[in-house]
């Protein structure tokens, strides 16, 4: 037996280098893709970094700034091959800036007759990591990886279509539209996981039911406490109504975890031949085991998301309580409502999955 585990993992050890290789190959390829862009891109050929300037602010934060003189060569547009000089300022902390190194590729922009640094080119790291991830998953999951990525891709398309419809239509219906999107997300994903079977219906109904109950409970508590200390207006990247965005975020955020959990429970329970009671109890036992870690997954993601801004707030002399309420609070509330969904899905899925099958006509 020992050998069979070892075989699965240690056979052909060189193949574990494939993800690393694919990262660097894709990274290398994107360094050649500048001609595909219409925006001028330059590659840094030489950098001269000036002395550090000490900076102290009125909260006694100590930082340094450097000015760089950068020589760079155009990689695309009609100026391809021409060399220009740019200047770049960067700080020790790097909130909005980054030091340039030889070989970096950046977007530039013409302003008042001079080219200036606009933004970094990031497609290499993004696509390289994507390639490495797919490669690694294919090594571990084998054929199943296509099904997984198919379902993810279908959901991305669904999201893009919804956003397009939402931004071009009557916004009064936005809540209905996004709820519809959640239903479609669930149906598409469960069909990918389970196929068109009774099992898929159980998972979908349980997921949607638990999420809806969690949202109702969450909003009920918001209303009961008068939204005390919950500042929905602080949601980031708002182009419309913050309340809508907050609602959409909770719904999408919890959907995946609830779905995965319902799937785990339903698959196990529906294989059991025993009667309703045993099946129900088996489902509850599985659910109790997975709910804790699943809540932790979302909790960590939602809270870590607020680190950068929280630290900025604290260093700008805001109190911990203020920082929590205004920066971390929304993620915290969303994590807790998702947790409601994850907990409620346990009895709901167990019940639906254990329900005796009707005799088929």
């Amino acid at each position, binding site marked *: *037996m*020992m050998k069979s585990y070892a075989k699965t*993992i240690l056979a052909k050890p060189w193949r574990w280098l494939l993800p690393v290789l694919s990262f660097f190959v894709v990274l290398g390829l994107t360094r050649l893709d500048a001609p595909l862009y219409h*925006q001028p891109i330059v590659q840094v050929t030489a950098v001269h970094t000036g002395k550090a300037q000490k900076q102290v*602010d009125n909260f006694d934060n100590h*930082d340094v700034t450097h000015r760089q003189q950068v020589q760079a060569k155009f990689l695309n547009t009609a100026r391809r091959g021409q060399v220009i000089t740019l200047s770049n300022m960067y700080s*020790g*902390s*790097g909130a*909005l800036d*980054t030091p340039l190194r030889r070989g970096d590729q950046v977007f530039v922009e013409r302003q008042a007759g001079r080219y200036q640094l606009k933004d*970094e*080119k990031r497609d*290499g*790291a*993004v696509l390289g*990591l994507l390639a*490495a*991830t797919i490669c690694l998953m294919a090594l*571990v*999951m084998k054929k199943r990886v296509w099904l997984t990525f198919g379902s993810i891709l279908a959901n991305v398309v669904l999201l893009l279509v919804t*956003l*397009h419809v939402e931004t071009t239509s009557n916004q009064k219906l936005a809540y209905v539209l996004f709820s519809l999107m959640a239903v479609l997300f669930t149906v598409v994903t469960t069909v990918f*996981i389970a196929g068109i079977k009774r099992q898929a219906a159980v998972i979908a109904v349980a997921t949607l039911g638990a999420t809806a109950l969690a949202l109702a409970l969450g909003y009920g*508590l918001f209303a009961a406490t008068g*939204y005390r200390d*919950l500042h929905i207006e602080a949601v*980031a*990247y708002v*182009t419309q109504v913050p309340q809508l965005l907050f609602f959409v975020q909770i719904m*999408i*955020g*919890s959907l*995946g*975890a609830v779905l*995965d959990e319902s*799937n785990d429970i339903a698959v196990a329970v529906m294989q059991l031949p025993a009667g309703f009671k045993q099946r129900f109890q088996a489902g509850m036992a599985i659910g*109790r*085991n997975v*709910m804790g*870690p699943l*809540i*932790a*997954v*979302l*909790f960590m*993601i939602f809270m*870590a998301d607020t*680190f*950068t801004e*929280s*630290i*900025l707030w604290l260093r700008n002399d805001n109190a*911990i309580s203020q920082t929590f309420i205004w920066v971390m609070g929304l993620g*915290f509330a*969303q994590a807790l*409502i998702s947790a*409601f969904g994850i*907990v409620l899905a*346990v009895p709901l899925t167990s019940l639906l999955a254990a329900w005796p099958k009707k005799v088929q006509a």
Partner: protein
Amino acid sequence: MNTFEALLLALLVLMVAVGGKQGFSNFLAVMINFLLMMLAVILMAGGFNAIGVAAVLGLVVLATTIFLSTRDGDVAQTAFVASLLVMLGMLLVIGIGVRYAHVAGFGTEDSEALEGYNLLIGVSFPHILIATALFSTLGAIAEAAVAVAAGMKTLGAAASEAGLTQMAAEIIGTALNTLFFGFFRGFAGLFLWFTQLRYPFWQVLNNQIFARELIEVLFSMIAVTLTVPFTMWIVQRRQGGRS
């Protein structure tokens, strides 16, 4: 009672009602993780090296999540060892990714939120990003490690290579929707912004915030995918050592 307290109380009631004693210890894990995250923010803002803080507190987060949500001591120990090693490996992966991606700090879409703030705060934003990315993977690592360790115990000697591959695929599949939709939540506002302001595809792909969010999802997916075979390997090593 403010809204957060009401939500916490409701979660406690639900978890105890559904999970009994185990539900209570799961709730305890949530509270401890919450305090650890607050501590992490305070320490990083206080000038401690963010990567060091993440590594040390990350270890405690893993221990809390694994030991408080698993009743089987053997499974918990294996899962803990495996997830610790995966966490160290992820530190390396995240470090490389962050170096190439230039996505630390804030993007142009953040400028409204930054108004009135001094940004030269003397804390390294790339380090904070590494800490953030590491913390976001921990829950997923712990979940997968526990699932594999428990699954291997159930399969026991009956495990065939095909069976193991199937289990690996199922466990990764289970984690993926959680991760994907969990991060999709962050994309919601951003995508509405991009659609409304009609960003072309190339601009989205190179956008600082989009790139950062996507890279964080990919880190988590890599973490889960690495955890599965790695935990299998640890189980095998531990069994080998005992017999």
